[in-house]
C-alpha cells in the first residue's frame, strides 16, 4: 500500500497494461517524448519505446480512426484526446464509427478501444477546455463511459477499460490530478458498472462523480454536524450504470439528490432522476433534486467559474431542502 496521486495512478495503469500485453499501445498528441500535456504518460515512451507510445499530429479523427482499425485487428489501443472538449472534432469517429461499427456489421468486429480524455472545469482553462463532456456520449449506444474520482478507481477502472472488449471513454478530471490516495501494490480488479458507497447514511442519498464526489463528501460531513445523515454513492461508470445500488439506497433513505458538475440538459443526472421517477416513484418521499452547473458555457474568471459549478455549500443547501420537504 502506498500513497499515490490520481495522475500517477493513471500512469501506472497504462504502464502495467503495456507491460502485461504486447497488443496494448498508447497513441495521442505529445503522449510520447513529452510525456503528455498533463504528464499522465510520463516515462512510458522511455520504458516502452516509440513503437508502443506514439506521438501523432494534431489529428483527432486520425487518432481515433487508427485506434478503431487496429482494435479490429486484435490490438488494444489507448488513445488520448488531450482535452475532452476536443472530442467534438472527432465526434464522427466516436459516435458514428466506433459506437456503431459492431452493431451495423452484426458483430463481425470487436472494438476494444479505450479513449482517455481530460475532463472538467475549475482550472481556469475557459470555455473550450473545461466542459465536462461525458454527457455528450450518453445518447450514443455502443459506448461505455468511465468517470473515476480517486487514485484507486483511476487505476482499477483504466485497467478494466483496457481489458474490456468494447469501446470505453475514460474521463480524467483535471481538478483531481494531484489528489492523493491509497493504491495497493496489487490492486483488485474492478468491473465496469459497480457503484461504490462512499459514505453510509440514513436520511438522503446523494449521487455524485469525479470532483463533485469530493464536494458532496465535504457537504455530507458538514451536514452530519447538523444531524443530517447522508449516504453518498459514486457510480464510477455512467454506462453501464449501477441503478440497483442507487435504488437499494433509496429504499432506506427515500430521498435523492444528484450532484453533477455539468449543465442539467441531457445529462446523466437528469437521466437518473428520470429513471427513478419512472421506476422508483414509490420510493421517493420528496421530489428528487439535481444540483447542476449553470446552463451556460464555462466562464473564465475565477469567481465566475466558482459560481458556475456546484460547491459543497450548494450541494448541502440542496440536501437540506430535500430533507426538509
Amino acid at each position, binding site marked *: 500500500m502506498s500513497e499515490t496521486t490520481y495522475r500517477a495512478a493513471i500512469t501506472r495503469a497504462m504502464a502495467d497494461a503495456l507491460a502485461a500485453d504486447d497488443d496494448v*499501445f498508447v497513441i495521442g498528441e505529445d503522449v510520447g517524448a513529452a510525456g503528455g500535456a498533463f504528464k499522465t504518460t510520463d516515462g512510458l515512451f522511455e520504458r516502452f519505446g516509440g*513503437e508502443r507510445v506514439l506521438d*501523432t*499530429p494534431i*489529428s*483527432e*479523427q*486520425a487518432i*481515433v*480512426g*487508427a*485506434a*478503431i*482499425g*487496429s*482494435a*479490429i*485487428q*486484435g*490490438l488494444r489501443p489507448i488513445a488520448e484526446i488531450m482535452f475532452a472538449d476536443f472530442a467534438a472534432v472527432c465526434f*464522427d*469517429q466516436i459516435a*458514428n*464509427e466506433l459506437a456503431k*461499427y*459492431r*452493431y*451495423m*456489421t*452484426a*458483430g*463481425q*468486429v*470487436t*472494438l476494444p478501444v479505450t479513449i482517455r480524455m481530460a475532463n472538467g472545469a475549475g482550472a481556469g482553462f475557459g470555455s473550450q477546455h473545461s466542459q465536462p463532456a461525458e454527457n455528450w456520449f450518453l445518447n450514443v*449506444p*455502443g459506448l*461505455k463511459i468511465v468517470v473515476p474520482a480517486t487514485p484507486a478507481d483511476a487505476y482499477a477502472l483504466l485497467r478494466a477499460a483496457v481489458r*474490456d*472488449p*468494447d469501446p470505453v471513454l475514460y474521463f480524467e478530471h483535471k481538478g483531481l490530478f494531484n489528489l492523493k490516495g491509497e493504491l495497493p501494490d496489487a490492486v483488485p480488479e474492478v468491473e465496469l458498472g459497480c457503484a461504490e458507497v462512499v459514505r453510509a447514511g440514513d436520511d438522503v442519498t446523494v449521487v455524485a462523480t469525479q470532483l463533485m464526489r469530493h464536494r458532496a463528501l465535504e457537504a455530507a460531513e458538514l451536514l452530519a454536524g447538523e444531524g443530517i445523515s447522508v449516504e453518498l454513492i459514486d457510480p464510477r461508470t455512467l454506462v453501464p450504470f449501477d441503478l440497483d445500488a442507487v435504488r437499494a439506497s433509496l429504499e432506506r433513505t427515500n430521498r435523492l439528490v444528484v450532484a453533477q458538475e455539468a449543465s442539467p440538459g441531457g445529462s446523466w443526472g437528469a437521466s437518473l432522476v428520470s429513471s427513478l421517477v419512472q421506476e422508483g416513484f414509490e420510493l421517493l418521499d420528496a421530489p428528487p433534486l439535481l444540483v447542476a452547473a449553470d446552463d451556460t458555457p464555462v466562464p473564465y474568471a475565477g469567481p465566475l467559474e466558482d459560481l458556475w459549478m456546484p460547491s459543497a455549500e450548494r450541494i448541502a443547501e440542496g440536501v437540506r431542502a430535500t430533507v426538509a420537504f
Partner: protein
Amino acid sequence: MTTTDAGTDVALERQLDFLRGMLEIRGFEDACHRLFAQGLVRGSTHLGQGQEAVSVGACGALREGDTMTCTYRGHAATLAMGAPLDRAFGEILGKADGLCGGKGGSMHLTDVSRGAMGSFAIVGGHLPIAVGFGFAARYKATGAVSVCFFGDGSTNIGAFHESLNLASIWKLPVVFVCENNLYGEYSPLLTTTPIERLADRADAYAMAKAVVDGNDVLAVHATAAAAVERARAGDGPTLIEALTYRQKGHSRSDPAKYRPDGELEAWLERDPIALHERALLAGGVEQARIDELRAAAERDVDAALERARGWPDPAPESRLEHVYAA
C-alpha cells in the same frame, strides 16, 4: 506520376475472371435498381454501374489478410473481395441471413471473413479507420495492406487530410483509391474543387501518386498492384486517382438531370465491361467464351437473388444484439 500500360502480365484466365466479376457486379446493381422500383428495398441505395473496373481491378491486386474499406457506394468493392452474392442481396433486402443480419443495409455491406471490413456512409469517415488497418499491419508485422476506396467528394473533407498525412508520416501500408466519377452527390467536381487532378493532393503529403483510366480494369489492376507492392515492401502509401463515371444518379432519388447533354452517352461508349470485352476479343478470345461468361454471371445473380428473397426476416430480438460484446 505513374502511368501503366494495360496489364500485359495478367494471365488470360485472370483477365476472364475480371470480366466475370464485373458482369456479376453489373447484374447485381441492375437487380438492386429493379428491386427499388418494386419497393423491396428500404431507405436509399447508391449504385455503381460504370465503376466496376475500379473495384475489380484494385481488389484483384490483394491477397488473403489484406483489408478493404469502402463507401456507401460499396456493393461493387464488397463483392469484388468475394462476398457472396446471395448474402449481399439478403442484406439489402433486410433478411436474417444477409451479410450483416439485416442490421446494416445497402450502405454498410461488410464481410470481414473476406477482408471486406466495411462500407461507411459518412463521407470520408472510413479513411482514418483504413489508416488503423495499415497501422495494425505494421505493428504486428503481418505484411498486410489496407486498401481504401472513396469518391472525389471525400477529398474535401477533413478526415481525408488527417488520414493521408498520418499514413505518410508513418509510412503505413495503405493504398488510397479515389474513384473520381466527376460528381460529389449532385455537384460537378469543378464547382466544388479548385484542382482537376485530385491525385495532386498527394504532393502535400509527400506521398506517391498515380492517375489511371478507371474504366480499364487491367490498367487499374496494374496500377493498384504496383502500389500494393510498394506498401507491402514498407515504402509507404499511395494515392491513386481512378478516372471513371457514375452512370446512374447519386442515389435512387436522383435522376441526374444536371449532366450536360452527351456526357453520359460518351461515357457509355467507354463502359468498363464493353472496353474489357473488346480488349479480350482483340486478344483472340472467342465471342462464344464471352457469351458463356455473360450467361453464367446472369444465372448466378438470378439464382442468388432468388435464394435471398426466400430467406426469413431477422428475428425481432436480434435488434438488441451486437451493441456490446460484453
